[in-house]
């Protein structure tokens, strides 16, 4: 029966994984299955090329001595060793040096495409140190927002990555030259791998970009992802990846014209394919225009580089970029207001697309009323089993709730409370209690992460004078990537008698 429990538990698997498994034959090379064959082939070739001599000098009896072999996912022939160069899809990789437990690479990145590097670990070896089985790879560092989760429970914990001398967890998205030092010292020193008795064996590169991926966002409308960094003059620069999702079959189509601007932080310029974008006026306001109408076959995804004025954005601060976006200019129904919260994180260059939209170009509405359906599910709030729960998914948005008053209408009248949000990057759930106008107000936050988005959920509960309670879920903002994040989002709910929620400006 225990296996049945396991089988049953798999029924609650994260939908992202299921979605991922729906894809047929990915373009990505199959790592585990293909690895044995390719690495074996590579080993043979390497031996023929005299790498055996190198192996002798590496003392194969030491399980953490590292030889590296490029295999599996290579896009060109494997390098012949140190001081060789490999052409890869998005640039070149130069094998600069190999140390006791380090490997130094120079990556010349020539595009903004995403690029993941994987390390493969072999699990078992024969007495001569020849790999006999492979346990698959671990994402070592990646532009993927999932990287930290992927590294969790993995054997890559003892591996340090230095990119241009700084400890990092991801390859910067921007073009440029990067020195990458992969340091296995901690792994070796810790005698890591007791569960696996593993040995570092093949090092190989897997890279893939947006054009290789099935788009996984499922929301209709704009999809924008950002990466951030600095331009050559130290100004904050974001790379904006814009696509337009037109249906739910996870495909993008391009757009002809995209008008956008950032209304709350001044943009210095926007670069597209090396040139500054022009501006046009719409409704008395100035917008940058990305015009692809004359392009013969515009790429599905465009990369724009947003350069903000110096000191407009500061590292380590949360910012919210409010970006009105029009598609094709005149189509009212395609107007989108996009909000983005960005936290500059020192050790990550990837900011998840923390974007939502709504069908209005109005500024944050002063008053919104959300009716609550009368059909309520019987879901228990894990934090308070006395409450019946209802999901307020429909009110999710990324507006700034700060300083607004939330009115909650119920059969007993209206409750309200002033929202004071303290957005932090703490991964801990905690409760805060405020008392305002006789209303006790609690909030707790959770952070959720998925492949394409990282969301901060703020739950708040209002306890009225007559003892009636409501839970609401408000999706506030994006969050930095944190380890050990909850996978399952708790549905926050309201009791049945609640008729609606209204948000108003504070007077």
């Amino acid at each position: 029966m225990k296996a049945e429990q396991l089988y049953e538990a798999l029924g609650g698997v994260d939908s992202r994984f299921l979605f991922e498994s729906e894809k047929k034959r990915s373009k990505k090379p199959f790592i585990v299955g293909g690895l044995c064959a390719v690495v074996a082939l590579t080993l043979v070739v390497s031996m023929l090329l005299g790498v055996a001599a190198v192996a002798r000098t590496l003392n194969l009896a030491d399980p953490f001595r590292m030889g590296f072999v490029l295999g599996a996912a290579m896009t060109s022939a494997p390098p012949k060793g140190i001081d060789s160069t490999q052409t890869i899809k998005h640039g070149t990789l130069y094998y600069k040096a190999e140390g006791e437990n380090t490997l130094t690479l120079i990556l010349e990145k020539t595009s903004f495409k995403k690029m993941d590097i994987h390390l493969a670990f072999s699990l078992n070896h024969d007495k001569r140190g020849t790999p006999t089985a492979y346990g698959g790879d671990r994402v070592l560092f990646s532009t993927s927002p999932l990287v930290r989760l992927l590294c969790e429970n993995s054997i890559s914990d003892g591996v340090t990555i230095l990119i241009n001398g700084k400890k990092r967890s991801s390859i910067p998205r921007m073009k440029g030259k990067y020195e990458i030092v992969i340091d296995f010292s901690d792994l070796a020193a810790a005698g890591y791998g007791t569960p696996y008795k593993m040995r570092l064996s093949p090092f190989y590169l897997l890279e893939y970009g947006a054009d290789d991926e099935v788009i996984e966002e499922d929301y209709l409308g704009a999809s924008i992802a950002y990466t951030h960094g600095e331009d050559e003059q130290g100004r904050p620069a974001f790379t904006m990846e814009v696509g337009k999702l037109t249906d739910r079959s996870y495909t993008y189509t391009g757009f002809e014209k995209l008008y956008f601007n950032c209304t709350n932080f001044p943009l210095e310029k926007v670069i597209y394919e090396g040139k500054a974008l022009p501006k046009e006026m719409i409704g008395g306001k100035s917008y940058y225009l990305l015009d692809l109408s004359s392009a013969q076959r515009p790429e599905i995804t465009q990369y724009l580089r947003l350069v903000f004025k110096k000191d407009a954005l500061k590292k380590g601060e949360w910012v919210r970029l409010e970006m009105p976006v029009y598609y094709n200019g005149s189509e009212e129904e395609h107007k989108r207001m996009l909000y983005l919260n960005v936290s500059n994180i020192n050790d990550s260059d990837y900011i998840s697309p923390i974007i939502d939209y709504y069908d209005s170009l109005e500024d944050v509405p002063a008053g919104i009323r959300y009716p609550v359906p009368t059909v309520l599910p019987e879901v228990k709030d894990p934090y308070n089993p006395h409450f019946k729960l209802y999901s307020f998914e429909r009110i999710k948005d990324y507006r700034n709730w700060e300083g607004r008053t939330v009115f909650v209408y119920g059969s007993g009248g209206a409750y309200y409370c002033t929202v004071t949000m303290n957005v932090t990057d703490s991964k801990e759930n905690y409760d805060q209690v405020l008392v305002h106008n006789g209303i006790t107000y609690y909030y707790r936050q959770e952070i959720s992460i998925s492949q394409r988005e990282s969301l901060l959920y703020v739950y708040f509960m209002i306890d009225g004078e007559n003892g009636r309670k409501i839970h609401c879920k408000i999706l506030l903002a994006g969050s930095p990537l944190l380890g050990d994040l909850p996978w399952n989002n708790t549905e926050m709910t309201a009791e049945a008698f609640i008729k609606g929620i209204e948000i108003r400006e504070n007077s």
Partner: protein
Amino acid sequence: MEDYKIIELYFARDERAISESSLKYGKYCFAVAQNILFSPEDAEECVNDTWLKGWQSMPPQRPSYLKLFFAKITRNLSFNKRKAQDSVKRGAGELPLAIEELSECLPAQGLVEEEVQARALQKALNRFLASLPQRERSIFLRRYFFTEPFPAIARRYRLKEANVRLILSRTRAKLKLFLEKEGYK
């Protein structure tokens, strides 16, 4: 019809939601159920129940992946039905095989204690799956979520059946280690 329109029908309490769901995902859900139940009649019944469950769940839920949302419902309904039939170990089809294979992942002694919350196990499994390479994870799920036979998985990923078996065997071994580390003894 596009998924979001179907979802809107559910939210609008429009019964066309069910016919549209059935039209678009009926065959898919039937395949999911059939892999578990190995009985067309029972599978059909579970598929019908799936729409009902979907009707009850939307609103409030607004699934990101409607297809998989239905797949989960179908799978769980089918599994429950199969359990109710008390034929998990004896019936035909892929499910008994899949479950038997999964039993390797559990420690020989102690096993998963009954009081362990299914939710905790689910979270642990999600963590485990997150740690796997994508293809390995997908193959694992094709087998143990969708209960697909080996040849079907092999076709999907253009692999030999033996490769699929090998990959699954290794993944199960990893899962066993993982569960042991997580304290499932």
